[in-house]
């Protein structure tokens, strides 16, 4: 896997009594936007907490920026930000006061103008800046949490379900913001979410976990290189010449024509996406629609969990 590694877990094990939360976990956090995917209880939040020194591993080594996550957690905490799924603030303070306090605790010298700019960036309603947090809606709290995570120009930001309390429109805005921050400020992200199509849209490195173990890691294309198949429905006119050409392709596992549509099981999605337009033009056909029965990430995720 070619990526600039900023964090690495090597055989990390964490037990809570009889429960094994992380079971020899190996993973790499790359520079860019990382997606952390796994079913409930996979150990995603435990892994995030471990990065901040809130948990000490029983075995293995966890490093971020080349520093030990338990021993050097103080330095790590000043270089990374986090938004936990469980949002907690000093509810008696206003949003701006909370941000001022956290900036002070982080040792960030953000003047008031910058703090306001940060709140504007996460699109927190300006009227809410001086209102007490206890009166905030779930979405407003989420935005404030995100602003808090971005305090002090962090190199890496961990986001645990960052869009869980937002409507689809605002979810898209937050994802757009993450992409912009990554491109313009070079901030890396590790996003843990169950909304896989969203992750697929913004992330360039995926970490799939289950039962405290790494299932797969890498870009979507890399993860598809295994024996998995993904189903596509292709609407083309005429169907038959395209079907004949497709049958001979190595990336195709299975093919059938149903209701004038091609139902294709694809072994290598990357190759299929490359070859399909060429074959369609070769057959002098026209493409109406290509629909994936499930998203790439969903397919990989399901397959990886099934294999595990």
């Amino acid at each position: 896997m070619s990526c600039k590694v900023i964090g690495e877990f090597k055989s990390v094990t964490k037990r809570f009594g009889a429960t094994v939360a992380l079971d020899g976990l190996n993973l790499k956090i790359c520079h860019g936007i990382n997606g952390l995917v796994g079913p409930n209880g996979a150990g995603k939040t435990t892994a995030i907490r471990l990065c901040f020194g809130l948990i000490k591993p029983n075995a293995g080594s966890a490093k971020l920026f080349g520093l030990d996550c338990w021993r050097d957690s103080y330095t790590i905490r000043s270089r990374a930000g986090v938004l936990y799924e469980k949002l907690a603030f000093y509810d008696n303070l206003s949003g701006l006061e909370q941000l001022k306090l956290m900036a002070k605790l982080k040792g960030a010298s953000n003047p008031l103008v910058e703090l306001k700019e940060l709140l504007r960036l996460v699109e927190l309603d300006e009227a809410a800046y001086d209102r007490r947090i206890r009166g905030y809606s779930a979405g407003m709290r989420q935005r404030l949490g995100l602003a808090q995570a971005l305090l002090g120009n962090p190199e890496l930001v961990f986001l645990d379900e960052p869009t869980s309390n937002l409507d689809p429109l605002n979810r898209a805005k937050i994802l757009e913001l993450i992409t912009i921050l990554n491109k313009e400020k070079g901030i890396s992200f590790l996003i843990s979410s169950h909304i896989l199509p969203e992750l697929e849209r913004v992330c360039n490195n995926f970490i799939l976990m289950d039962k405290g173990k790494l299932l797969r890691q890498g870009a979507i294309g890399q993860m598809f290189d295994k024996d998995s198949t993904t189903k596509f429905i292709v609407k083309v006119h005429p169907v038959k010449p395209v079907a004949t050409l497709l049958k001979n392709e190595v990336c195709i596992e299975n093919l059938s024509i149903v209701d004038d549509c091609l139902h294709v099981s694809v072994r290598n999605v990357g190759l299929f996406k490359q070859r399909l337009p060429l074959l369609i033009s070769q057959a002098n056909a026209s493409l109406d629609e290509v629909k994936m029965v499930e998203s790439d990430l969903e397919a990989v995720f399901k397959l990886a969990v099934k294999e595990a």
Partner: protein
Amino acid sequence: MSFQVGLALLKAELGKVWARPILEITVALMSVMSIASIKPLTEIYGQSKFSVAFQSAVAESVSTTVASLLLPLVIMCAVLMSLSFARDYEQGMMQSLLSVPVSRKLLFTVKFVAVVLPLALLSWGFTLFFVGITFYSNPWLVLQFSFYALSVSFLSLMFCGGLGVLISLAIKRTLPSVLTALLTNFFFWFPTTINMEFALREGASYANYLCLTPYNGSLTFLNKLLNVGQVSSFSPIANSLQYTLSSGSFGGLVVFYACIVVVPMFVYFCRRFEIRE
């Protein structure tokens, strides 16, 4: 820088812990308990004996006020400490605070001080006020004696708060922690209601050791500092531990109780504490 960070955090913690109606409830509870302890100087003394009698009355008044304030102090300290630690853990505030570059030592100290210091100051303030309104003619003496109350309340609260932290970090749930801390502290406070002299006369030998319990120990220490409740050498209880041990021994005992839970909890929080849920 670290001092400023500590101050900012303390301000935020004070605002959270003492938010309405906590302060109002505490003040009301303490007022009710202190009013009951007011004892005006009613006897008539000769001019030569007056200053001694006055001094002894002030000391006695301080002692009874502190003793009557102990129950609300213990209740509020148990509740607030559990709220501060267990609720923060349960609601995710603890993990948020531990994820910013603030040392665990500072966080523990700030959270502990945000509960204990205002309670100790309130107890001192109430003692000063309620003793002062009776013995207003000698405010200096009242101030001097009530300072002893401040130190003793503070040391008692260290024990009570330590128990609160221990229970909160063990249970990690707000309501069960509050109830357990309340019951535990009530159990430790209860021996202060037992009349040692009466129990010894009735043949209950355990009463001799009651003065060694945390809150009895601190009240006995205060009485010894104020020279209150002395008995003659002919009294049947003159040989009991309460009267034979020196004020220094009780001082040591109170400091021991103040540290016995807090220090291990501090070390645990700084070195081993984990967010597990």
